[in-house]
C-alpha cells in the first residue's frame, strides 16, 4: 500500500495535474489512490478465480485455507498468476500480427516488397498450422536447439498458447513444468513480434531513424488534431494519414507505433499521462485501438467535447472508408469545438527515433564490449506504472547506466519517456555518457543519441539487435554482458516480453515485482531453474530501492567479458 507522493517527473504533466485538481477531474493517480490498499492476495499471486467454485486464496497466516478449493497450493497459485499474464501478453502480440496480416491478405495495402510479404504471410499461417515456422531459422541454432531440448520451442499456437492457457484450468503439473509452459507461450509472442516486424518492413519499406519532436508542445493550435491511441492495424493508420494528406489535419500518436513509412505520428506523450493530451483542449478526435489504452479516456473526452472512435469494433467495414470517415469527423469536430479553449504549453523535446537493428553497426558494439571499452548492454523497456513517479525510474536509471559506460537500447513507450528528457537527442549525447560509451556512439554515427530507440513494441528491433549481436560476437547471448530492465512495467505484454528475453539468455529485472512473491519456490524457480535452463534469471525484486541501487544492481549483473 504505497502512496506515491510525487506523481510525475514531467513538468507539463505536473502543470495539468494542478488544473485537474482544481476542476476535480479524476486522473489515473486519483483512481490509484482510491484503490489503496490493493488486495494483498492478488498482489502476491496467492489468489485464483479460474473457476466458479472460487474465488480462492492461499492465506499466508491461516492454516485452514492454505490451498484453493481444487487443491492449488501457494506455489501453483503463484506460478499460475504468472502464466495468466504471459498468455494474455503473448496473445496481445498475436492479435497485432493477425490483425495486420489479415489486412495485407485482403489487399488493403500494396506491399513494397510483394514476394517477401507473401512469404511472411505463408509463415504466419503456419503459426496456426503445423508450427514449422520459417522465421525461426533466423535464431541461432544453439538457441533453438536448447529450446527444443527444454520443450519450450514455440511450435504454433495450438501447443504454445492453447495448451498453455489450459494449464490454468486443471491438471497436475509442478512449478518448474508449469513455468516452462509459460515460457513456451511467451516465445510464441516473440515469434509473433518478429513476424510482425518483418511484415511491416516488407509492406511499408525499411524505416529510417528520424528526428521526432515529442511531448505536448508538438500539438498544433489552429488545425484539427487526430490522436491515435494504442494498437490497431498499421494499414488503418496509413489510410488515415493518406486521407488527411493535404487537408491541414495533424495526425499524432499516443502509445502507438509512430513509424508507418512514409508517415510519422509524433508521440504526444507516453502511457502514464495518456489522459493529459485531452486536457489541453487541442485534440479534436481520438481514434482508439485495444491495447495500452485506459478506458477512462471515454469519460474524459466528454468533458472536452472530443469525439471517440474505437477501431476494434464488430462490423467495422472497409479500412479506406473508415479512414475517410475519421478524417471528416475530425474536420467537423474542429469546427464544432471552436469555443473550447486550446492551452498548449510550449514544452517539447526532440529525439532521434526509429532505429532498426540494421542501422547499428553491431560489430563495433561487439568489439567495444570485447575490448572492455563499455561495460555491457542494457535493454530498457516497459511503459509507465502509476506505482512509481512517472518517468523518474526509467530516466534516472538510464542516466546512471550511461554514466557507467553501459550501451543502452530502448523500446516502445520507454523510448518516449526517455525522449521527453532529451536522452534521445543526439545533440545532448555526451552530456550523460561516460567516455568509453561516448566514443562508441560517435563511431556508430553522427545522429546516434545516448540511448538508441529500436522502435515500438510492434517492431522486433530489440530481438533483431540481440540476434545480430550474437552472430557478430560469435557467442551465445547468455555469454554476453547484456541485461534487460523494465523499470516501470505495467502491461501483460511486458511480462511476456520479459519472459522471452530470459528464454533468449538475457537476465531481466522487472519492476514492480511480479505477482508471484507469495511463493518463495516460484521466485527461486524464476531465478535458479531459469539460469540452469536458459542461462539467465528473471529477477523478482521485492525490496524497496532507489534508482541508484537499481542501476548498480543492473551493472553488477552484467557478465564480465
Amino acid at each position, binding site marked *: 500500500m504505497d502512496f506515491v507522493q510525487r506523481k510525475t517527473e514531467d513538468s507539463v504533466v505536473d502543470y495539468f495535474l494542478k488544473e485537474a485538481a482544481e476542476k476535480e477531474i479524476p486522473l489515473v493517480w486519483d483512481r490509484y489512490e482510491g484503490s489503496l*490498499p490493493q*488486495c494483498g*492476495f492478488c498482489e*502476491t499471486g496467492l489468489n485464483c478465480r479460474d473457476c466458479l467454485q472460487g474465488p480462492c486464496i492461499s492465506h499466508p*497466516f491461516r492454516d485452514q485455507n492454505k490451498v484453493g478449493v481444487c487443491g492449488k497450493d501457494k506455489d501453483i497459485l503463484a506460478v499460475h498468476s504468472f502464466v495468466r499474464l504471459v498468455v494474455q501478453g503473448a496473445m496481445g502480440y498475436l492479435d497485432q500480427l493477425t490483425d495486420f496480416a489479415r489486412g495485407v491478405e485482403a489487399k488493403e495495402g500494396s506491399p513494397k516488397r510483394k514476394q517477401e510479404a507473401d512469404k511472411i504471410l505463408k509463415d504466419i499461417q503456419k503459426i496456426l498450422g503445423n508450427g514449422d515456422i520459417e522465421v525461426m531459422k533466423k535464431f541461432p541454432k544453439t538457441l533453438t536447439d536448447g529450446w527444443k531440448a527444454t520443450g519450450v520451442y514455440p511450435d504454433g499456437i495450438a501447443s504454445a498458447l492453447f495448451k498453455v492457457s489450459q494449464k490454468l484450468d486443471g491438471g497436475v503439473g509442478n512449478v518448474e513444468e508449469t513455468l516452462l509452459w509459460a515460457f513456451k507461450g511467451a516465445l510464441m509472442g516473440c515469434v509473433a513480434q518478429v513476424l510482425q516486424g518483418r511484415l511491416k518492413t516488407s509492406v511499408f519499406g525499411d524505416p529510417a531513424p528520424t528526428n521526432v519532436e515529442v511531448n505536448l508542445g508538438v500539438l498544433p493550435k489552429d488545425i484539427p488534431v487526430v490522436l491515435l491511441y494504442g494498437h490497431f492495424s498499421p494499414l488503418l493508420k496509413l489510410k488515415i494519414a493518406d486521407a488527411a494528406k493535404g487537408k491541414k489535419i495533424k495526425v499524432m500518436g499516443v502509445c502507438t507505433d509512430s513509424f508507418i513509412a512514409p508517415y510519422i505520428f509524433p508521440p504526444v506523450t507516453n502511457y502514464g499521462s495518456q489522459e493529459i493530451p485531452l486536457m489541453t483542449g487541442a485534440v479534436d478526435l481520438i481514434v482508439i485501438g485495444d491495447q495500452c489504452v485506459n478506458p477512462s479516456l471515454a469519460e474524459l473526452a466528454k468533458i472536452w467535447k472530443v469525439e471517440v472512435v474505437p477501431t476494434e469494433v464488430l462490423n467495422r467495414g472497409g479500412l479506406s472508408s473508415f479512414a475517410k470517415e475519421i478524417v471528416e469527423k475530425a474536420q467537423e469536430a474542429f469546427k464544432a469545438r471552436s469555443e473550447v479553449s486550446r492551452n498548449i504549453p510550449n514544452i517539447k523535446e526532440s529525439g532521434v527515433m526509429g532505429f532498426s537493428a540494421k542501422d547499428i553497426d553491431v560489430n563495433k558494439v561487439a568489439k567495444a564490449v570485447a575490448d572492455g571499452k563499455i561495460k555491457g548492454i542494457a535493454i530498457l523497456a516497459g511503459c509507465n506504472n502509476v506505482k512509481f513517479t512517472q518517468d523518474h525510474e526509467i530516466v534516472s536509471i538510464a542516466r546512471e547506466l550511461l554514466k557507467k559506460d553501459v550501451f543502452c537500447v530502448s523500446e516502445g513507450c520507454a523510448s518516449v519517456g526517455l525522449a521527453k528528457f532529451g536522452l534521445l537527442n543526439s545533440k545532448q549525447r555526451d552530456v550523460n555518457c561516460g567516455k568509453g560509451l561516448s566514443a562508441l556512439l560517435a563511431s556508430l554515427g553522427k545522429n546516434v543519441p545516448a540511448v538508441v530507440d529500436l522502435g515500438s513494441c510492434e517492431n522486433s528491433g530489440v530481438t533483431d539487435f540481440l540476434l545480430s549481436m550474437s552472430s557478430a560476437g560469435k557467442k551465445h547471448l547468455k555469454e554476453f554482458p547484456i541485461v534487460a530492465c523494465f523499470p516501470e512495467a505495467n502491461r501483460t505484454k511486458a511480462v511476456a516480453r520479459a519472459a522471452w528475453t530470459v528464454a533468449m539468455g538475457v537476465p531481466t529485472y522487472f519492476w514492480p515485482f511480479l505477482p508471484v512473491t507469495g511463493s518463495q519456490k516460484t521466485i527461486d524457480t524464476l531465478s535458479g531453474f531459469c539460469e540452469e535452463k536458459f542461462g539467465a534469471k528473471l529477477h523478482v525484486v*521485492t525490496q524497496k530501492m532507489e534508482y541508484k541501487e537499481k542501476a548498480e544492481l543492473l551493472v553488477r549483473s552484467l557478465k564480465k567479458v
Partner: protein
Amino acid sequence: MKVIKVDPDKCTQCHTCDLWCGIEIGSERKELNDAIHEKPQPVPRVYVEGSNFPLHCRHCEVAPCIDACPNGTMRRDPTTGLVYVYEPTCIACWMCVMVCPFGIIAPSASFHTAVKCDRCRNMEYPICVDVCPTKALVLEEREEGATWYGYAPKRSY
C-alpha cells in the same frame, strides 16, 4: 471508548483485514512480501471464518479473560479501557482462551503466548479498519450499555 463496529451486510469475506493484521501487527518486518515468508507464521488477531463477520476482541466491560488470568498477564489499559496481553509474563496456560465467549484469543504454540486483538492500541487507527475495502469495519464510540458492542453480564457474585 472507541470500538470496532462490524457491518455484516458490507463484509465480502475478502480476508483483507486479517491479512493486514498479520502483516502490521503479527509480523516482524511489517512488509507484505517479507511477512508472508516469515517463520514462525505471523498470527492475525482478527478472524473471518465461515460467515461474513470479522471477529475482533469486544473489550468486554466485565472481561472474563482478565478474571481468569492467573498472573495478571491479561490487562486493561486504564486510560483507553482496551484489553491486552502483556506478553512477557504469559505462561501459556490458555485459561483466557477457554473463557473467552467469542473465541478470539489464539493460543499460539509457536510464540508461546496468548494472542489477541488489542484494537491496535499503540497505533492511531486500527489497521483492519484502515484497510477494509468496503468499510464494513468502522471505529465508533461505544454506546452506554450497548451489549452489541460489549459483552457485559451483571455480576451475580
